[in-house]
């Protein structure tokens, strides 16, 4: 436990950093809390930026984790539009981009990740967009509308969610994917083809095996995407969603252990006992899978924020959680539990054609991951089975006449 009047400085005011600041007060931390954020606005939820917010179904107020007055009202010194630029671990001082310094007792790195930018000609044209921040989302929304055509570079979840929202706004969408199928890095073939079909039904076009080599423009504005085979796909805007990299430079320059992310233990501690790291920037252990990896998800950010809030306020460490994430596209709710590591079999429960089914990835008779489409029981029970490592009867798991509760109880 840290001393009760410790000054906690949180660098990064995303979902992880914002949640931690609030939890520190909820758990009764008496000392000063400073929350430093690069963006001009207080912490907000990013997931709706490609979904409800983009479609106009949620406003800025509903995105905000807490109203602005919450921070002052709870003695949280929120400092917008400023970045951490250096850590002096001996003096325990964080240098900020405005030239000032902050002395800390406990420092928490919550610097997140940033979208990968393609190093190809035309990437700096107007209308070549990415989607991470509220400002990115504003630019995307302003560029969308009836009659516009959006090219999506990268068939991952963000690109697909944006494509679904674009269709809802009356725009055309064409997805350009380098791999032979969409979601190639994150999902199996059954799910890839289900989503492709769902999007095609809604009028989204796909080009797979399509390697983007550049953007074409006129008068500084994007007009098309060039592919390696010479084709040019006309567009009014291009959204690039090809993954993200951790903002680990601050930690790296301070000499903390980094390895494709800031290395932390199960309590979100870095290699310096006075410094924690939480959220997308971390490379963390995941005992279920016997490996360390980096998760870009809200549940992970919340879990690690909770770990640090408990450590600072002397509460017992929270129990480990089974990772999960979700995606909404059209009327499809996808809930994923676990990560598909080391599986030797994928079992489909239910009929994909019905729009309600789940894919269980198994290692022997243990569930490693489940992708549930409009199927909450499969998600909820699957998540429990992943956490408990209890063996399942595969025949019963594949049989939809046996309820998930019965499958899990067997």
């Amino acid at each position, binding site marked *: 436990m840290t001393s009760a009047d410790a000054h906690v400085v949180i660098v990064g005011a995303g979902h992880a950093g914002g949640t931690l600041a*609030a939890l520190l*007060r*909820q758990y009764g931390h008496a000392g000063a809390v400073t929350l430093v954020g690069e963006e001009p606005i207080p912490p907000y*939820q990013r*997931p*709706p930026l490609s*979904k409800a917010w983009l479609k106009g179904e949620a406003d800025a107020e*509903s995105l*905000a*984790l*807490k*109203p602005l007055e*919450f921070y002052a009202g*709870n003695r949280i010194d929120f400092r917008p539009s400023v970045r951490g630029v250096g850590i002096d671990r001996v003096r325990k001082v964080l240098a900020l981009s405005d030239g000032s310094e902050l002395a800390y007792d406990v420092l928490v790195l919550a610097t997140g990740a940033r979208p990968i930018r393609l190093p190809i000609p035309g990437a700096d044209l107007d209308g070549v967009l990415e989607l991470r921040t509220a400002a990115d989302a504003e630019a995307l929304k302003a560029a969308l509308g009836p009659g516009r055509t959006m090219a999506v570079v990268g068939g991952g979840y963000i690109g697909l969610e944006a494509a679904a929202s674009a269709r809802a706004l009356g725009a055309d969408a064409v997805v350009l994917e380098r791999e032979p199928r969409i979601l190639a890095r994150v999902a199996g073939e059954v799910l890839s083809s289900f989503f492709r079909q769902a999007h095609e039904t809604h009028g989204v076009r796909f080009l797979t095996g399509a390697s983007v080599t550049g953007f074409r423009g006129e008068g500084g504005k994007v007009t098309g995407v060039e592919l390696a085979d010479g084709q040019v796909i006309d567009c009014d805007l291009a959204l690039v969603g090809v993954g993200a990299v951790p903002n680990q430079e601050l930690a790296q320059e301070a000499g903390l252990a980094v390895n494709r992310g800031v290395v932390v233990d199960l309590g979100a501690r870095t290699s310096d006992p006075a410094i924690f790291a939480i959220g997308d920037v971390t490379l963390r252990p995941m005992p279920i899978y016997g490996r360390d990896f980096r998760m870009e998800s*809200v*549940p992970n950010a*919340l879990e690690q924020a909770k770990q640090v809030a408990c450590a600072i306020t002397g509460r017992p460490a929270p*129990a480990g*959680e089974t990772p*999960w994430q*979700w995606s*909404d596209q059209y009327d499809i*709710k996808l*809930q994923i539990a676990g990560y598909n590591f080391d599986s030797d079999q994928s079992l489909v429960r239910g009929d994909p054609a019905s729009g309600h089914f789940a894919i269980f990835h198994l290692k022997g008779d243990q569930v490693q991951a489940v992708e549930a489409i409009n199927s*909450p*029981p499969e998600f*909820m*029970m699957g998540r*429990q089975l992943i956490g408990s490592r209890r063996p399942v009867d595969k025949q019963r798991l594949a049989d939809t006449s046996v309820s998930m509760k019965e499958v899990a109880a067997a």
Partner: protein
Amino acid sequence: MAKITYIEHDGTEHVHDGKTGLSVMEVAVKNNVPGIDADCGGACACATCHVYVDPAWLDKTGDKSAMEESMLDFAEGVEPNSRLACQIKITDGLDGIVVRLPESQH
């Protein structure tokens, strides 16, 4: 606008005004009420905003969707008056509503 009373598992009460259109979950989270985690932010994807609606108010909160019903079926300690707070939209008719929070959302 509606006055909402949240009662923690240990009996601690929190009373907050909620704007019409927001959800009972959103008002709790924005006011840092302990005991409502709301991991998914209201997408009905996580069942971590489970509350027990005071029986006198249950009828006024409307019907559960199939999705909510299904998610709740797998939450801990579910009772007939269990709801997901993200699915209860605030109306003037809910002014005075009382909800109780479970011991844990996980």
